[in-house]
C-alpha cells in the first residue's frame, strides 16, 4: 500500500515539473540570500574584532556561507532534473542521482536548523567574549602611546557613538577605571594628588565619562564630570537624569545587534522550501518513472512518496542494510553450493566438447 498515492495525467505531470522548476529557482535565490547573509554577518563580526576576545561566534556565518553555496548547487541540479523529467530519453541519467539529492537536501535542512540552534546557543559565549573585550578596551583607553593598544581609544569612542551605548554594563564602568593618561595630569595640582591618594592602587579615578558617552538627544549640553554630585551642576539631579548620557551598556547593544542579524528568517524560509521541494520532487520522480513503464507514455501514472507503507519500507531498508553488512562475511553454505555449481558447469562444457568432437 503506497504512501499518499496520487494519480497524475500527462497534463498534471507537466504542471508538476514546471511548478517544481520554479520552486527550485526560488530556492536558488534563497540560497544566494543565505550566502550573502553569511558574508555580511562575517564582515560585521570582523569589523568589531577588536572588542571581541575570541572568534567562536564565527562558526555561524561560516556555516551560513557553506549552506548557501551548497543549496545554490543542489537546487540548480533540481531545476535541471525538472527540465529533463518530461523527456524520456534524458530522465534516466538523473535517476541515480536523485537518491543522493534527497540525502543532500535533508543534510542542508539539518544544517540550517543547526545554524538557528547555534545562533541561540552561542549567545552566552558572544556575551562573554564581548564582556572581556570591552573590559580590556576600557582599561586600555588611556594607553594611546602603547603599541598594540593605541587604537583602543578611537575604537571605543566610535563604538559608543555608533551603537549609542556607554561602558560595559552602563556608564558607571568608567568610574572604576583610570581613563585619563598620567601624561595629561598636572601632578602639581592638589586635587590630582588627593584623588590619586584616595585609592589603594594610586589611580586617578573620576566620576566622569568620555565625551563619546554623551547623548545628542539630551535637552541640555552634556555633563561629563562630577556626575554623582547633584550639587556640582545647576538644576541637575543624579538619580533622575536619564537623557544626559547613553543609558545602555555596549555589551547589551552589540549582543542585541548581532542576535538581530543572526535571527533573521532566512534559514527558516529556506528549510521550509527545501522540505516542500523534496516532497514534490519525490512525486515527480515516481510519476515520471511510472509513466515511462507504461505502454503509452502519455497516459496516467501514479505518484507516491513511499512505494510501500512506512513499516514495510523500514523492513526493506533494514534488510538491505543487513545485506550490505553481510557482503563482506564469507558464508560456508553458499560457498559449497557455489563449488557444486562450478563442477556442474565443468561437466556440461566437457559434454558439449565431446559431442561436438
Amino acid at each position, binding site marked *: 500500500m503506497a504512501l499518499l498515492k496520487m494519480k497524475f495525467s500527462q497534463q498534471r505531470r507537466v504542471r508538476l515539473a514546471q511548478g517544481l522548476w520554479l520552486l527550485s529557482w526560488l530556492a536558488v535565490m534563497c540560497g544566494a540570500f543565505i550566502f550573502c547573509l553569511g558574508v555580511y554577518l562575517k564582515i560585521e563580526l570582523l569589523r568589531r574584532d577588536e572588542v571581541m576576545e575570541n572568534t567562536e561566534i564565527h562558526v555561524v556565518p561560516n556555516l551560513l556561507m557553506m549552506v548557501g553555496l551548497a543549496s545554490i548547487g543542489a537546487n540548480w541540479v533540481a531545476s535541471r532534473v525538472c527540465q529533463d523529467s518530461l523527456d524520456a530519453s534524458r530522465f534516466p541519467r538523473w535517476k541515480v542521482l536523485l537518491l543522493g539529492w534527497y540525502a543532500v537536501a535533508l543534510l542542508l535542512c539539518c544544517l540550517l536548523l543547526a545554524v538557528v540552534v547555534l545562533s541561540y546557543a552561542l549567545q552566552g559565549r558572544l556575551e562573554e567574549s564581548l564582556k572581556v573585550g570591552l573590559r580590556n578596551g576600557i582599561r586600555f583607553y588611556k594607553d*594611546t602611546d602603547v603599541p598594540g593598544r593605541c587604537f583602543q581609544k*578611537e575604537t571605543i569612542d*566610535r563604538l559608543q557613538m555608533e551603537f549609542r551605548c556607554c561602558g560595559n554594563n552602563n556608564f558607571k564602568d568608567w568610574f572604576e577605571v583610570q581613563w585619563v593618561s598620567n601624561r595629561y595630569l598636572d601632578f602639581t595640582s592638589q586635587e590630582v594628588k588627593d584623588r590619586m591618594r584616595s585609592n589603594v592602587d594610586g589611580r586617578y579615578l573620576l566620576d566622569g565619562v568620555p*565625551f*563619546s558617552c*554623551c547623548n545628542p538627544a539630551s535637552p541640555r*549640553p*552634556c555633563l561629563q564630570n562630577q556626575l554623582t554630585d547633584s550639587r556640582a551642576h545647576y538644576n541637575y539631579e543624579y538619580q533622575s537624569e536619564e537623557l544626559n548620557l547613553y543609558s545602555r551598556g555596549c555589551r547589551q547593544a552589540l549582543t542585541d545587534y548581532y542576535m538581530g542579524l543572526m535571527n533573521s528568517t532566512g534559514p527558516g524560509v529556506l528549510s521550509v522550501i527545501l522540505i516542500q521541494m523534496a516532497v514534490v520532487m519525490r512525486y515527480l520522480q515516481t510519476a515520471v518513472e511510472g509513466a515511462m513503464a507504461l505502454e503509452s507514455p502519455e497516459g496516467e501514472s501514479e505518484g507516491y512518496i513511499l512505494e510501500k507503507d512506512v513499516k514495510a519500507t523500514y523492513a526493506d531498508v533494514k534488510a538491505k542494510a543487513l545485506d550490505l553488512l553481510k557482503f563482506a562475511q564469507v558464508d560456508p553454505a553458499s560457498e559449497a553450493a557455489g563449488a557444486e555449481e562450478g563442477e556442474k558447469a565443468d561437466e556440461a562444457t566437457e559434454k558439449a566438447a565431446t559431442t561436438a568432437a
Partner: protein
Amino acid sequence: MAVGKITFTKTEREKLAEVLWLLNWISVVTGAILFGLGLFLKIEIQKWQEVMSEQGILYVPHMLITTGLAACGINYLGSKICLDCADTNKFLRWKLVMMPYIVCTFFFTACVLAGALMCYSIRSQLEEALYLGLRNTMRFYKDTDTPGRCYLKKTLDLLQIQFQCCGNTDYRDWFQIQWISSRYLDMTNSAVVDRVRSNVEGKYLMDSVPFSCCSTLSSRPCIQHNLSNPGAHAHYDEQSQQLNLWRRGCQQALLDHYTGTMQSIGLTVLLIWLFELLVLTGVRYLQTAMENVIRLGDPDSESEGWILENSLAETACYNFSIIKSLGKCYQVDDDPNINVPTAAADQEAPSAQVQVNVTS
C-alpha cells in the same frame, strides 16, 4: 542643401528601425535612472534641510525627477513608433505625430542638458544657504524647549559627529553665541552673572564648544573648555591642540559632500543626455527616410534621410517667418482695396450709364 544627408536602402531602414526600438527601450531604463537620481538627491537634501536656510535648491532634484518621468514616457512612445516605422503602411498611421514628437523630444533633451548644467552651477547658492542655515541653527542650539526649534540641538550634534566638523567656518564660531540655555545657568552664582554682564547683549559667552566637536582621533581625552587658554591644561601642546577638536567648518564639510554628489549626478545626466541626443538623431533620420519613401511611391526603393532639409540658416529663417506670420493673422496690411482714391470709381460710373441709355 540638406544637412547630414544619408541614403538608406530598404534593409537599412528596417535595421535602423529595429536598432532605434532597442535604443528607445534602453532610454526608458536611463529615464528611470534619471528619476532615481533625482529622488536620491531630494532625499539627501531633505536629510539636512534643517541646516539650510531656504529650500531653493530643491528645484534641481525636482527638475531631474520630472525629466526622468518624461523620458520614460517619451521613449516608450518612441519605441512604439520606431517599431512601426519599418513598414511603410504602419508609418502612415504615425506620420502626423512624428514631427511634433521630434520637436517635443528636442525640447526634452534640452531640459536634460539644463538639468545636468544646473547640478554644476548650484555651488554658490548652496554655499549661501548653508552659511545662513548653520548660523541660525547654532543660534537656536540652546532652544530645546521652544517648539519648532527643539530638534536643532540633536540635528547639529549629529551633523558635527557624522561630518567630523565644528561650527560654521571654524570652532571659534561657538565662542560668539550662547549655546547653554539660561535654565541651566545658576543666576545666583557671581561668576555667571559677571559673564552675562560682560557683553552688550547679556549673553553667556564662553570659550568652550559642545561635545560633538570632539575629535575621535585625539590621543588625549577631549578638552572642551578654556580653549583660548592652552596653559590652563596640562601638557596641552600644539599637536594636541590640532587633534583635539575637528578643524573643518560644517559649511565646508556639507558643501564638499553635496558638490561631490551633484558632480557625479551631473556627469551621469550628461551621459544620458548624449545618449538621448543619439536616439533623437536616429529617429529624425528614420522619419525623413520614411517620408521620402512615401513621396517616391515605391516602398522598396532607396531613400534619403537628413537632419535638416535646407541648410541651418535657411531653416532658421523659415521657422522665424512662420512665427512672425503667426502673429500677423489679424492684420490686413496686404489687402489691395484699402486706401485707393475714390475719384476713378466716380468717373467710371456715369459713362456706363450713358451707354445703357443709348442701347435701350
